[in-house]
């Protein structure tokens, strides 16, 4: 048996990070453009999760007639759209009014706290506190064993089917292939990086920062090569071995969040309204002078952020299997930590911050004696505090 090791902890951390990132994306929008440190964001996540539940598994909710259930993806979409409408409501009834009164940042914080109280308890009121789950197809976990042998590396995939552990795949990469593949991937990534980067010396703004693009391309190339060129197994007597567990669920979560991040970034950087949103974040009065309807921008910010929060809620509920009225609030601290860590002003920063927080949470749980498992959230905080002491504006500032 191969044990799950540090690599698995890192992978788990990336998935945790994705969940946090889902929340961080929305929060960074509100924090940056609406200038509200939104303490209700966790509960907006909860509301989104439960909205999807209404359509997916209504039987679980008291006093709702059981009107059949929709598959989770469809229910999620409906839930996200409804959450967007709620977001508009929050802006129109609450935050716009306070903005018109020129409320300061502290007032906004406490207003959002009030909203958080209301949202959380509305869920509690309507649904009660028992654990509820989504009605969705169960997904099986595949374990990837990586065995480093004298001849190279062997990869074995196993799954649990009908109670037994079944080997579903076995292949390997000899050393020369490993080395060649890694060099090729790095070269491709570097090439993309150089080609994409413009003149040196100026602070220019890119759609996707060249370093990130280069790294992403390198990793993608390595994975593609690994998937395409699978040779015979290189022996099963490992010098060193590790295991990571992955499922479609994990990949979907990471994929959805990355897609959302990319879509948001494209919207902000290339569309006219996206520019207006960034301009409003930069200097709201000047934006008005240039013809931007700041009220419309803020409305859209709240709608998009609520939709992103709802998406994060559905993913969290799906991942954690259970939904509870507190599920969003427990994520609130790591999400804030991620946004502040990554610098408020960019979606990439928020996601990067979230990944760092997620990985450090799960790696620390792995490294520390099991007794310390409950300190997961504390780790996120210690990292945030540490970073803030060195760089009070966050790691990235502007990406």
């Amino acid at each position, binding site marked *: 048996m191969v044990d799950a090791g540090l690599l698995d902890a890192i992978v788990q951390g990336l998935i945790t990070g994705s969940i946090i990132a889902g929340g961080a994306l929305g929060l960074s929008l509100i924090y940056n453009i609406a200038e509200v440190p939104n303490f209700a964001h966790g509960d907006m996540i909860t509301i989104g999760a439960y909205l999807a539940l209404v359509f997916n598994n209504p039987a679980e909710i008291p006093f709702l007639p059981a009107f059949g259930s929709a598959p989770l993806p469809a229910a999620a979409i409906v839930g996200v759209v409804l959450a967007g409408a709620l977001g508009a409501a929050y802006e129109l009834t609450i935050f716009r009014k306070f903005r018109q009164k020129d409320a300061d940042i502290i007032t906004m914080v406490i207003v959002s706290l009030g909203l958080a109280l209301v949202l959380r308890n509305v869920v509690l009121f309507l649904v009660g506190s028992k654990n509820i789950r989504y009605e969705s197809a169960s997904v099986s976990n595949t374990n990837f064993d990586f065995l480093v042998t004298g001849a190279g590396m062997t990869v074995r995939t196993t799954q649990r089917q009908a109670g037994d552990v079944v080997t579903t795949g076995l292949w390997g990469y000899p050393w020369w292939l490993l080395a060649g593949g890694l060099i090729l991937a790095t070269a491709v990534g570097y090439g993309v990086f150089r080609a994409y980067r413009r003149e040196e010396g*100026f602070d220019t703004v890119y759609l996707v920062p060249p370093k990130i693009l280069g790294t992403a391309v390198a990793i993608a190339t390595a994975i593609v090569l690994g998937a395409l060129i699978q040779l015979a197994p290189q022996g099963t007597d490992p010098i060193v071995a590790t295991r990571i567990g992955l499922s479609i669920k994990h990949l979907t979560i990471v994929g959805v969040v990355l897609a959302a991040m990319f879509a948001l970034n494209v919207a902000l950087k290339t569309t006219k309204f996206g520019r207006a949103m960034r301009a409003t974040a930069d*200097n709201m009065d000047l934006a008005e*002078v240039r013809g931007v309807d700041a009220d419309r921008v803020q409305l859209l910010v709240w709608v998009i952020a609520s939709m992103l929060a709802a998406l994060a809620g559905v993913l969290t509920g799906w991942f954690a299997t259970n939904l509870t009225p507190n599920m969003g609030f427990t994520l609130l601290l790591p999400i804030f930590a991620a946004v502040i860590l990554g610098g408020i002003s960019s979606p990439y920063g928020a996601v990067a911050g979230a990944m760092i927080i997620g990985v450090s949470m799960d790696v620390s749980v792995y490294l520390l004696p099991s007794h310390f498992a409950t300190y997961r959230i504390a780790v996120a905080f210690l990292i945030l505090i540490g970073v803030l002491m060195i760089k009070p504006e966050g790691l990235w500032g502007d990406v």
Partner: protein
Amino acid sequence: MSVLEIRGLDAGYGDLQILTDVDMTVGEGEYVTIVGPNGAGKSTAMKSVLGLTTYMDGSIALNGEDIAGTDTNTVVSKGVSYVPQSDNLFSTMTVRENLLMGAYSLEEVPEDRLREVLDRFPILEERQMQRAGTMSGGQQQMIAMGCALMVDPDVLLLDEPSAGLAPDLVVDMFDKIDEINDAGTAILMVEQNAKEALRRCDRGYVLVNGENAYEGPGTELLNDQEVRERFLGG
């Protein structure tokens, strides 16, 4: 018909009234300056056109249309453009993006006008993709002015365009403003540097304590004994 006509304007901030019964006119293609001591209300008068102040009484007409009390972002789409004294660009966005934001109130990006602006300020073309906040003070003023020109306004409102510029850049700035005016855009300018402003403009207004004090062709005001003593240092 004048491009901009202010009649009997009372305005201020919140409960504080700054302007009392102010009158001002800018004709088509005219170059008009507002000068006066600190606290006279010059910037307030300009900001009132854009709806950035608390409107109390009077009328503000743009091309004959009453715009007093209208939302800022609506006013901007009616033919007036404004370059604030400070905080006048989006420092986190590139030069090019700033210029594109200048044209926000238009349906499509006016490529020809963008071309004109870049031609008029060549350094901006060179540094299009640079983050605006990292440019020098003079260059930032150019960006701010370029933005305002993107909509080809009927009247361009400039709030102390020479503020904070080195002396040789000040002359450059005034030359550029002359050029813009020669091309047909009316100019309404608030200036601390009264001598230079009055020398170049068509007409000027002197505001004192929020009220009209003097008015007339620029050269006349420049040579007027009283005006010289009180505001131009004799």
